[in-house]
């Protein structure tokens, strides 16, 4: 187990920069998730840590040792690939023991370790099979087994669950979390799925366009997103945004671009008449109330999900979503009262940063 320090890492392909000044300290035993949309550079960063991509500038340290120029085999890390990358001409047991055989580990020790890993992952009856005779979930397990027999300094996961169906993904997600609890290994996990990020991570690193947007605990990112990108990326259904102008005063008001005034319970940390974006999560909108702070929203669409109901509403020209568990809303139509509680509001300035 080891800590991983990433200092001012940059990566360019020719003249095209794909990672800008990434700075990250990963503690020993921590589970860090790199999350972001496709092409945000998260996989590139992971591959740089693994040694599969060169480092354009900056420094990567594993357990205090600079590894920039080190070949992947000398970094003592294990990686689980999105495609699993199992060796098709080797049995499950030989797939799992390949790294140990390369290191000339004694046969008895290999047998013990492989048996231990197989028991942990429920692979005992499959050890003599070839990968092609396995289901997707089983292949995924073999890939994990191949990583854990090594007891490496760190585990790297490159979207390991994205080829599985939804049910299996949920199950494997829990297994990965359990495995991390058991092994306590430093882990870096790349995904574009914010649910995976939220459920697995000790800390999430949200990335966009090669830039780290926010680093923090899952609830940090959910409760206090640093900017519009993180606010929109974390949470499902996503946060609602209203662009507009803030009017300070005795009765502070946020005027949307569509000239709808949203009354605020308390004043916001914004200058009078400042252009800003107001954000609120669908699950925080209160669908009731009367009085001056209540607005009337038009119901456009009702989406039952079983777990709850997503209401597509609009205020003037601005559409937004609300989420509720109250089944009486299944049959609403026309207009309903909505209220945006002050403690659930997020304000972002003209640059999109949280204020």
């Amino acid at each position: 187990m080891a800590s991983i320090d990433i200092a001012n890492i940059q990566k360019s392909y020719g003249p095209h920069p794909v990672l800008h000044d990434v700075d990250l300290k990963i503690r020993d035993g921590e589970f860090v998730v790199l999350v972001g949309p496709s092409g945000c550079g998260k996989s590139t960063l992971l591959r740089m840590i693994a040694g599969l991509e060169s480092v354009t500038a900056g420094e990567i340290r594993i357990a205090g040792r600079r590894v920039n120029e080190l070949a992947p085999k000398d970094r003592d890390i294990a990686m689980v690939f999105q495609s699993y990358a199992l060796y098709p001409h080797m049995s499950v047991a030989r797939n799992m023991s390949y790294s140990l055989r390369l290191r000339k580990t004694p046969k008895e020790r290999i047998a013990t370790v492989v048996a231990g890993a197989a028991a942990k992952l429920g692979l005992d009856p499959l050890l003599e099979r070839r990968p092609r005779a396995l289901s997707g979930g089983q292949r995924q397990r073999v890939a994990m087994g191949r990583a854990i027999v090594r007891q490496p300094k760190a585990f790297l996961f490159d979207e390991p669950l994205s080829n599985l169906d939804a049910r299996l993904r949920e199950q494997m997600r829990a297994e990965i979390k359990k495995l991390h609890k058991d092994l306590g290994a430093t882990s870096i996990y790349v995904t574009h799925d914010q649910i995976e990020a939220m459920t697995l991570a000790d800390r999430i690193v949200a990335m966009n366009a090669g830039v780290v947007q926010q680093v923090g605990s899952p609830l940090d990112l959910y409760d206090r997103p640093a900017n519009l990108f993180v606010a929109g990326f974390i949470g499902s259904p996503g946060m609602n945004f209203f662009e507009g102008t803030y009017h300070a005063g005795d009765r502070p008001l946020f005027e949307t671009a569509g000239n709808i005034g949203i009354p605020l319970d308390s004043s916001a940390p914004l200058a009078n008449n400042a252009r800003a974006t107001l954000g609120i999560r669908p699950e925080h909108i209160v669908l009731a109330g009367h009085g001056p702070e209540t607005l009337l929203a038009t119901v456009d669409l009702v989406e039952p999900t079983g777990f709850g109901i997503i209401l597509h509403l609009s205020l003037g020209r601005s559409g937004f979503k609300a989420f509720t568990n109250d089944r009486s809303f299944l049959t609403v139509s026309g207009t309903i009262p909505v209220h945006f509680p002050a403690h659930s509001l997020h304000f972002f300035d003209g640059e999109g940063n949280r204020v």
Partner: protein
Amino acid sequence: MRAKSAFLTVAHRLAILAYIAFALFPLFWLLKVAVTPNDLLYSEGIRLWPSRASLEHFDFVLRHSAFPVFFRNSLIVSGSTAVVVTILASLSGYALSRFRFRGKYWLVTLMLLTQMFPLVMLVAPIFKILSPLGLTNSLTGLVIVYSAFNVPFATFLMQSFFDGIPKDLEEAAMIDGATQFVAFRQIILPLTLPGIAATLGFVFTAAWSELLFSLMLISGNEQATFPVGLLSFVSKFSVDFGQMMAAGVLALIPACLFFLLIQRYLVQGLTAGAVKG
């Protein structure tokens, strides 16, 4: 619906049968002439099988002609060429598939360019080059020339096989502790066996049936390969078809054996199960 699908199946089989018959008919004719005794060759007209078959031509070819020498020479030349070309093409195909290096584009263009010249144009210059080196009238010379001609195409062939193997596999091996070369040898190469078999087979048959250079660079029976040897059955006044065909049938044997040997690798999709799906 059922009748229709049965009809389609029958039509499908018939079409395949027709194709096989069309493709194999020349081979059948070769065999037929080879077993037809000389006295029946011209007297029986066109028949699918002679009224009396004999192996006398085979007997003559094996015992009284220089055919065994031609056969041995061809085996040496084709086998060596196939091995040399496949080794070179595996390495260069891997490099083209996996590495980015300066001049790669020009290298590929140059290799393509070599495939554009008719071989006849090159006979004289190659003779001029090989002659002072003492490589004319030598099997080594033939192996060198055949290798040179086959390496570019075989390289492209091998490259496409390497392209078909996911890069993840060798990356996984390198993370598991292998160097790039060990990953190539232990992970990639075993998965490329079908490609290697195809390349071996392709180069072997190309060298086995090559006539032009063999004819130009080799004089005399001692170093002649079998296609040149076949011509020795053509004399000034007659063509000994029976013996020629018998020799032809015998020449088919190693090619058939060779493909029998490698067909296991040709049909096997070894990469199945490597990655998702």
